[in-house]
């Protein structure tokens, strides 16, 4: 992976075309308690293994993607458009 990423719209593209946001977490409801928001913004699991991330194809189709990747081997399990995964709140 670290050199090539599969974009569902554009195919296999070099890493330089992408911007990585970070963990693909589910956003809490606007009226959720402070602790939920605190965890969402500041706490991360950082596993060595399967990890879901938001990637932006900045120099390509400019769609947000959810990439499931192994953080130890860099193998990509899946790469899908964020809208299809139901994650539309991927803005920074």
């Amino acid at each position, binding site marked *: 992976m*670290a*050199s090539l990423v599969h974009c569902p719209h554009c195919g296999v593209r*070099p*890493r*330089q075309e992408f*911007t*990585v*946001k*970070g963990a693909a977490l589910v956003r809490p409801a606007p009226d959720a308690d402070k602790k939920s928001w*605190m965890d969402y*913004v*500041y706490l*991360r699991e*950082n596993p*060595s293994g399967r*990890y879901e*991330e938001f990637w932006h194809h900045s120099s390509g189709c400019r769609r947000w993607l959810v990439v499931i*990747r192994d*953080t*130890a*081997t*860099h193998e990509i399990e899946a790469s899908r458009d964020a809208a299809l995964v139901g994650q539309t709140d991927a803005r*920074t």
Partner: protein
Amino acid sequence: MSQSDKGGLVFGGDLDGYNSYAQRGNLATVENVAEEGKALIPSLSRVRMLRSWGGIMDMSMDGSPIIDRTHLDNLYLNAGWCYGGFKATPASGFCFAHLLAKGTSHDTTRQMRLDRFERGYLIDENGQGAQPNVH
């Protein structure tokens, strides 16, 4: 960028920008770092790069370290040094010792509290927000 006493130039580096435990980086990062090096010292273009390596950086959410006591008695925290660790070791050690000995933070590290995230007092030198991979 620094030069060892043997003559070799050691320079770097960059974050890969994504979580990784593989400790090997990628070619794109190597190219970026080389370009940055050459921008600083143009005559590097005729000097050969010998070896590249990558490690694991413990990135905090605002790119700044945490030196603080915790909610557990006698348990103190000095972590989240990102990639600034090695050279900051002497000062960090001194300030940490101050905290352990006196029970209060040294002036220099007064703001490096663990609860700064919760309270909104991030030390965000890059102005990037809670994005550990861009600091």
